[in-house]
């Protein structure tokens, strides 16, 4: 392969250059209007101001973040707690597979956020409709991944269990579930990303609080600086989530992931 060279200084330069160009075009040369693309300094100022100010949408950035987090975590946790065991049971018990999977396959191709309008009619604009929608979008990847994970169990491991006289349930707990664990964790991570996306969409459509609501309102009054602040918050929190989960994953998954 190629020589081992380290270009980390280029990476830092690249980010600095990006910010510099942005600054040059927007703040120095004033080539863009404030209502389409503000410069980095303006965005920074807005970000700091928005931490404590409730204008123009009635809540501080922290409050918006808190609201989004609360709902997405709630729905996600429900999705994991219900979806993962269901996927495991579907893969392990043939009867459940035969009868539950067709219905699951029916709702699976519908993206989570397409349920938003229906849930709003059924449960109103409040918390419940959003939690249910987030739950649905987290539920599907959890089921899918744990199902696939269990199916990867090696026959020879099951034979070992069988010849040692293990019961069906013992084999599920001691052989199939550990085999599936890496994929189950992937499902949990995908589900977290999906619920985070879904909550932003739900808040853009019907809400009075939350990051999605904030950026949607800011669009209405032509404040791209607030939109960009919101996007940064959404991106950073999303990245933090997946980093945290991969830390947990490395803790839980023992041995090598796959041999």
């Amino acid at each position: 392969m190629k020589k081992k060279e380290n270009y980390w200084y280029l990476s830092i330069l690249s980010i600095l250059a990006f910010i510099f160009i942005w600054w040059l075009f927007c703040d120095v040369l004033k080539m863009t209007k404030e209502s389409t693309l503000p410069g980095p300094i303006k965005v920074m100022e807005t970000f700091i101001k928005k931490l404590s100010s409730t204008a123009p949408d009635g809540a501080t950035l922290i409050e918006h973040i808190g609201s989004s987090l609360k709902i997405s975590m709630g729905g996600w946790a429900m999705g994991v707690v219900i979806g993962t065991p269901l996927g495991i049971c579907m893969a392990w018990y043939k009867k459940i597979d035969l009868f539950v999977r067709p219905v699951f396959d029916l709702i699976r191709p519908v993206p989570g956020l397409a349920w938003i309008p229906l849930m709003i009619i059924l449960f109103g604009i409040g918390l419940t409709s959003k939690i249910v929608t987030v739950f649905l979008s987290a539920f599907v990847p959890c089921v899918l991944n744990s199902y696939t994970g269990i199916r990867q169990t090696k026959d020879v491991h099951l034979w070992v269990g069988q010849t040692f006289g293990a019961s069906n349930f013992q084999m599920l707990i001691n052989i199939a579930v550990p085999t599936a664990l890496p994929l189950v964790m992937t499902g949990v991570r995908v589900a977290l990303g999906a619920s985070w996306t879904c909550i932003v969409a739900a808040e853009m459509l019907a809400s009075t609080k939350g990051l999605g609501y904030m950026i949607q309102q800011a669009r209405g009054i032509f404040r791209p600086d607030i939109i960009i602040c919101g996007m940064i918050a959404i991106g950073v929190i999303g990245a933090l989530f997946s980093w945290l989960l991969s830390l947990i994953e490395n803790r839980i998954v023992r041995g090598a992931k796959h041999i």
Partner: protein
Amino acid sequence: MKNRFKDAASYEKMICAGISILGFLCLWQLVVSFTAVGELLSGPLIVLSKFVTSIAEPIGTYTIQLHIFWSLSRVMIGFALGSAVGIVVGILMGWFKIIDAIVRPLFEIIRPIPPIAWIPLSILWFGLGEGSKYFLIFYAAFCGITMNAYSGVKSVDPVLIGAAKMLGANNRQVFTTIVLPSCIPHIFAGLQIAIGTSWATVVAAEMVRSTEGVGWMIIKGQDSNSTVQILVGIVAIGIVGYILAVSMRAIEAKLCVWRVRGK
């Protein structure tokens, strides 16, 4: 030896699937007919008949197949552009270290932002028309595919490259005969995910701002309190989503025969 996960015979599968789906629909119909839920939610029979009639009678200005066509055309244009650019950027990033060092940090900053969060900004930038939708789908496809093409190049077996070099291949030959073919499966995995994300994104974008398309159908259904229209829209979204995923897999099976047979 006994294979635990051997699939049931296909007739047995069909019968069970039939029973469980029918059971689900019956339960739905019963709940709607005999409980208070019926005041809010419409039953499967009405949804089905509405779905069929909307092929002739327009919902809003278009019939259902035209709504689907609108959404699909948005996805296809954005997806084609996004995946083409994504594949090129991803492969370049994977093959040239300098490009990797320059582009990847920027990419990593943008990547965690879900496409849906770009909706407000894209409307400000590209207006309410098609431009903003193409941009969103482009972004959705680009992010997913770039990462996969990149990891595809990165995961090429160095032994293969060594073997080719030993046989006298130059850098360009190594790239075209070894690196490209071995990252095709990764690229397809990316395309598979990206087509799903793109479809979800177009629905979201149409819900936020549009005058036609499946996303518009369901959000208008919400405005007029018509669960029939929402459910017809959801059915359409589900069917198209399913067809998109299946055809993606079919194309992959055609192009990567060596992988499918191995499974």
